[in-house]
């Protein structure tokens, strides 16, 4: 701090820490400079002057909205795929003569399909977010950590102000472009978000939601990885669209749950009330597209690896009880139920034998208890036992 005592406005502008405070401040910079000004009030004039020059030189930024951001990413993915295929085809040209004798069409198909795999990825990453911290990333790239177990976030109607667990944060009101925000909830935590249009979103453990702070486009679009329950505010002029993996859910105003955890390989949508249109556009060589109109109490499941879809009528409350800290199952594979318990408590559960995972589980689990107690409840309904390892992992044994 000493060296700054004789700084002029120009010196301040040449200082990396000072500049970082003006352009993209973190906690360190904020604390340091507020403290500095308080301790050295006579430096205020120089700092003010430096700020004036900074403001004159700082210009408005062009931004891509969510649609454009996504569209551009899709193009990059497509282009990457094409270029690997060209390399592959070039290779094939030389290899073809040799291989022709041996290869059946099926094997070639296998190769082409697998040559594409490395470049199959999603805009919203399928890896769990780095770090174990629940956080919200604002349009300017700054991050706010959400310290509570269950965080509440709500936006003002103009999107400029958001309240995070009773702290108010002001966002720069940008241009007419959408300002993209992102909430990341790691395993073991949850969050409730009220978007600027009044739509409520309950975000389950291990999930991410990407959305604009205010909806300025013709449709209200958000992107989801993981699981969320939506209570969409009615607005017939601006349909609400949730994109989860390859599924687009179009709604006007309704309540529904989507679960699209990358590790599950199954996207599941359950409609509680209203009407939604589900659009699926498959990738890869068997390009497939279809639209499903869902009715209340319907569950729609899509296996992403095979493209197989099934639908059935269900008791919706069982699928949305996680919001209230409960899990309800009706003839659910044990492996899927344990996956949910894992995410909720941020623990690892392994099976001693994969066959155990196929037991069907029915019943109610109160997640307010410790994971050990939850496993004991499960023990009562299916013939299993469990052990806790020294590294904190749980192992499920058959009986």
């Amino acid at each position, binding site marked *: 701090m000493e060296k700054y005592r004789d700084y002029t406005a120009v010196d301040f502008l040449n200082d990396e820490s000072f500049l970082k405070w*003006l352009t993209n401040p973190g906690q360190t910079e904020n604390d340091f400079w507020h403290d500095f000004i308080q301790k050295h009030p006579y430096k205020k004039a120089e700092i003010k002057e430096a700020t*004036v020059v*900074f403001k004159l030189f700082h210009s*408005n*930024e*062009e931004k891509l909205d969510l649609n454009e951001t996504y569209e*551009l990413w899709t193009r990059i993915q497509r282009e990457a795929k094409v270029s690997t295929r060209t390399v592959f085809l070039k290779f094939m040209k030389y290899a073809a003569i040799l291989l022709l004798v041996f290869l059946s069409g099926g094997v070639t198909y296998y190769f082409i399909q697998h040559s594409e795999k490395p470049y199959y*990825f999603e805009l919203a990453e399928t890896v769990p977010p780095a770090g174990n911290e629940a956080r919200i990333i604002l349009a300017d790239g*700054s991050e706010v950590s959400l310290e509570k177990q269950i965080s509440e976030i709500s936006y003002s109607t103009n999107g400029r102000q958001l309240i995070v667990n009773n702290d108010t944060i002001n966002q720069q009101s940008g241009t007419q472009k959408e300002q993209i925000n992102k909430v990341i909830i790691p395993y073991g935590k949850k969050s409730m978000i009220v978007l600027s249009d009044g739509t409520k979103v309950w975000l389950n453990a291990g999930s991410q939601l990407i959305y604009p702070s205010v909806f300025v486009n013709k449709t209200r679009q958000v992107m989801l990885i993981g699981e969320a329950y939506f209570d969409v505010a009615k607005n017939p002029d601006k349909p609400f669209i949730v994109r989860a993996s390859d599924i687009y859910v179009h709604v006007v105003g309704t309540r529904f749950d989507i679960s699209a955890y990358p590790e599950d390989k199954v996207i599941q949508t359950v409609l509680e009330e209203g009407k939604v249109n589900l659009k699926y556009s498959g990738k890869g060589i068997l390009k497939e597209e279809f639209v499903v109109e869902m009715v209340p109490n319907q569950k729609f499941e899509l296996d992403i690896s095979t493209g197989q879809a099934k639908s059935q009528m269900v008791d919706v409350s069982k699928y949305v009880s996680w919001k209230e800290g409960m899990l309800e199952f009706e003839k659910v594979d044990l492996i899927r139920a344990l996956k949910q318990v894992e995410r909720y408590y941020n623990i690892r559960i392994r099976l001693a034998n994969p066959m155990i995972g196929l037991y069907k589980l029915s019943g109610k689990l109160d997640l307010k208890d410790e994971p050990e107690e939850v496993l004991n409840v499960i023990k009562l309904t299916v013939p299993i036992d469990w052990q806790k390892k020294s590294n904190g992992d749980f192992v499920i044994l058959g009986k």
Partner: protein
Amino acid sequence: MHSVENKSDERLLWTRFLKGDNQVLSLIYLQHTNSLFDYGCRFTYDKDLVKDCIQEVFCSLMRTRHNLSETDNIRLYLLKSLKRKIISELKKHNSQTRILTDQDYPFDLHWSENMDEQLNDLDEEKRQLLTDAMQSLTERQKEAIYLRFNRGLEYEEISFLLNLNYQSSRALIHRAIEKLRQIIHVPNKKINQYLFCILHKRAEPVFEHEN
């Protein structure tokens, strides 16, 4: 409530990408796409061209992954690739009479819209002086200022993007700052006070301690 430093996250992503993890590229893309788009739009009004070039930058990133190292600065690498790509595209399709070279290309720098509004309250003479000062900046000076004050880059990073040495890029910015300061310090104290006043109406976070 506090914000989190994401430098280490950034490094982690880069390392994982270099090791062959394509999943993280989408995160790298999300982190940098807006900065890249804005930087690109400074060279041309053709937004579609900028998008095409960003696409190309990411595609070639996947192709040339093996030649990159862990110590590379992702952000700088992306900015530099994008600039090179856009300028070479502009050279190809240049229909204007002006000849573009690697060292001579236009760069757009204008102050923020709300700054314009605030300056409207200012007396004509002073505003003219500030506008003139902005317009008299050379294109390279504008780019250096942009990289410093919008992107928040360090002088060494700026030198790398402008193909200048450290001293020259520092001097470019220094001269521009001095010019503005001279105008701000025109003897008329009253105007001076007024200027500070209106410029600071929205200044945060420096002045929240004054209350």
